[in-house]
């Protein structure tokens, strides 16, 4: 340690502290990072968040180690100026190459995760359709309006419900649209976020893997009661889902025949324009 110059010592301290910090973060913090493992997509996003946190810890450790040394060791002494160092080609090259490599790695890793469908709303023509085993994906349409989400199940009897109930371990193909302004359908526990635009169909895939209740929020300012546009949904077993479908269909039967035909977008008459 004594034979290394100050830069060498900073480097060693950086590597040691970042190794310790990254290990601590990976063991204690990373499992608690959002969005958790409520779905396959969420698990993919959590892995991304973990990798990004570790990279950030690495970078922060470097900058803090350097600054901690420099701000103490290089305080003013008398009235003199410092040495006229205007640059160092090697340091600049190492930095440029190093940061570019980190960035390229993160971009590649993110793209790889995207291929697995971890990307939330993909628009009307999704490219990254995750593979699914077993049954075909369950179609659920999320209809956003000021200030409530409703859910239409076109393949389960074409009814519309105010409750989101999904079967576990089956891929869900969500079609998110809006009736008036821009909303955003966000289920943090499932790693699902898809904006709802009027006249547009935003498709997202999710395969829930844990039973239980999930929080639903609107994540795009949609007017006065945006803050109240939240609720909860349930992930249930396939048999519980089937019985819920049956009972919900009975419950909403009086109004089902008022529904317009199923379509990926619904637009009000232009003379009833928003506002």
């Amino acid at each position: 340690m004594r034979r290394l110059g100050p830069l060498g010592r900073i480097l060693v301290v950086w590597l040691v502290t970042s190794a310790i910090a990254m290990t601590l973060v990976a063991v204690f913090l990373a499992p608690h990072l959002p969005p958790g493992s409520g779905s396959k997509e969420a698990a993919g996003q959590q892995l991304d968040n973990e990798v990004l946190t570790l990279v950030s810890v690495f970078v922060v450790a470097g900058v803090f180690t350097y600054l901690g040394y420099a701000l103490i060791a290089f305080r003013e002494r008398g009235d003199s100026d410092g040495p006229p160092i205007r640059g160092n080609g090697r340091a600049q090259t190492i930095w440029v190459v190093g940061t570019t490599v980190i960035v390229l790695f993160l971009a590649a890793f993110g793209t790889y995760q995207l291929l697995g469908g971890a990307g939330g709303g993909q628009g009307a023509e999704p490219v990254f359709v995750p593979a699914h085993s077993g049954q075909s994906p369950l179609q659920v349409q999320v209809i956003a309006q000021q200030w409530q989400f409703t859910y239409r199940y076109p393949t389960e009897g074409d009814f519309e419900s105010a409750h989101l109930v999904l079967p576990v371990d089956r891929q869900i193909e969500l079609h998110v649209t809006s009736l008036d302004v821009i909303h955003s359908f966000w289920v943090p526990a499932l790693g699902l976020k898809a904006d709802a635009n009027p006249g547009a169909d935003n498709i997202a895939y999710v395969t829930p893997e844990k039973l239980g209740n999930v929080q639903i929020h609107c994540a795009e300012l949609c007017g006065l009661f945006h803050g109240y546009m939240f609720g909860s949904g349930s992930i249930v077993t396939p048999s519980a889902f089937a019985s819920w479908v049956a009972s919900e269909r009975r419950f909403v039967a009086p109004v089902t025949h008022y529904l317009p035909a199923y379509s990926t977008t619904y637009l009000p008459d232009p003379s009833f324009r928003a506002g």
Partner: protein
Amino acid sequence: MTDLSLDPNAGRPFWRRLLGFNLLTGLLLGVGGFYLGWYGGHWLVNGLDVPSLDYVGDTDQNDVSLFLAYILGVAGFLIGLGFGVYPLARLRGYPPSLREKETTGVGRYFGLSTDHKVIGLQYFIGIGFFFLVGGIDAMLIRVELLRPEPNVWPAGNYLTLVTEHGTMMMGMMTSGILGPFANYLLPLMIGARRMAFPRIEALTFWLLMAAGTILISAIGFGGVPTGWTGYEPLNLQANYGMDAYIMFFALVGISMTLLGLNMLATVITMRAPGMTWRRLPIFVWGVVTTAALMLLAAPVLISALMMAAFDRTVQTGFFVAPLGGSSYLFENLFWFFGHPEVYILALPGFGVVLELLPVFARKPLWGYRLAVAGMVGVALLSWTVWQHHLFVSGIDSDLRPFYMFSTELISVPTGFIFLCAMGTLWRGRIRYTVPMLFCLGWIFNFLFGGLSGIFLSDVPSDVTTHGSFFVMAHFHYTIMGGLIFTFFAAIYYWLPKMTGLMLDERLGKIHFWTMFIAFNSTFAPLFALGFMGMPRRVVTYPSDLQGLNDWVSASAFVLGISMLVFLGNLIYSMLFARVPAPANPWGSKSLEFQLPSPVPVHDFDRIPVIEGDPYGYGEDGAVVARPSLRPAGGEA
């Protein structure tokens, strides 16, 4: 030396001074224009039999009349100030009035002046005032968020507060460093005596003042419910306070475009002999890159908002899906402006930090060309990343890997700035003055701001955090922790030069430490709140998040108090202590510090010939300019 003091009002009684083109006339004509537009608009809409205006006429909120009122009000205001005097005089062949060239008296700060130094100080006070207004809005927002259920403001008022805070800050602080400091100092740094277009420079200031007043008036017209991004179609539903928002950004956009034009023209054409691009102070490079972005990005915003205004008044369907339009169009247009806009906010901060660090580390700027490459790289790449605001909006999913890559890539040139800052500190002789503390605060804050940006640039991670408080934490760290900290660094560093009075060092340190600790205490928990699922712009939240929100609100109040400490310092130092500032209180080698404090009316006695860059610390015999600019009042 010739006496250059000019007072066209010499010998006139006071009441004669009030007549003619000045701020009072401007305000009167502005109000007159407002009412003319208001009643004229009502007459127009109700009198003409145009089907698309019938809808407007039937409601009791007449957007056409409010737009006309604002437009004619601003026109009256500018005419009353005297902006029409010079063009009209030249048109008619008469010699123009010299009122705008006044060089003495406090009155010249309250009207149209073409002296870049006067405009710089006008900007400082004007932007400072609106910054305070935006800050008070923030305090009111945090009061609301003390309790999970709505406790103080009805939902509509809360959204108006959120919008007013964001819009005021984004519109005003865009010119936060370029307005006061580039206007005052750019000519001095490049060895010129004025900006390229002095009257346009004055126009940018007064447009901004009119804009800020209009935005505040939105409160009287039903408020603005959309947040600073003004998304369609919510924009269309809104009360006619929305028109005030549109006018605000239209005027700010014009001001930005002209400011950028002026800065670029000045730096390109008016550098002193010997001032090559490689000898420019790095702050000037920051201004140049910012100005280029301003010039090119602001018109896109103005166009998008004009389209929104037409949607709101004459029933066009640009952004209305049932009429064949698309809400995506607005998002894309807005963010095509919006992303370069945030680099417009960040780049002057880069320039300030890299300009100040050499002075306080007593070393040349480390990696000058790399720093320039970083700034230029950021400016160029900022055009290629805007879709990252739309990752989950339903854009074509093929686009997302590209924009993820481009957004990640922009962190590389940003990193150059960090490298140059850290390299400048290496083996330096660091003096911990108040400006230096704010620069070090920038390094700390922007590090976390930038790293959280990496999270947001990664699409899967963005699915977790888009539209949540994580985004709020990210941009407050970069904009407030970045721009505002450098704004204060610039104030403490250059205000002695601009006013000739020193700011109190001890109060400055109290200000810094209170602000730094309170700032981090306020915004760091927001990362956690975002991770815990709290969306943005909400008036209620799950009750288990109340503890964190209360901590954030308490810290925000302390942050507000730190601003009061600064205000106290300003008032105390400028009005009571009045310690005269030496010409070069920091020992800088830059051109502006070779002139007396405050800078005399004519700037340079003789335009210098430049022989080196202003970073010759530690280099024997380094000469910046010839003849040596010994300040007339003696060196301290």
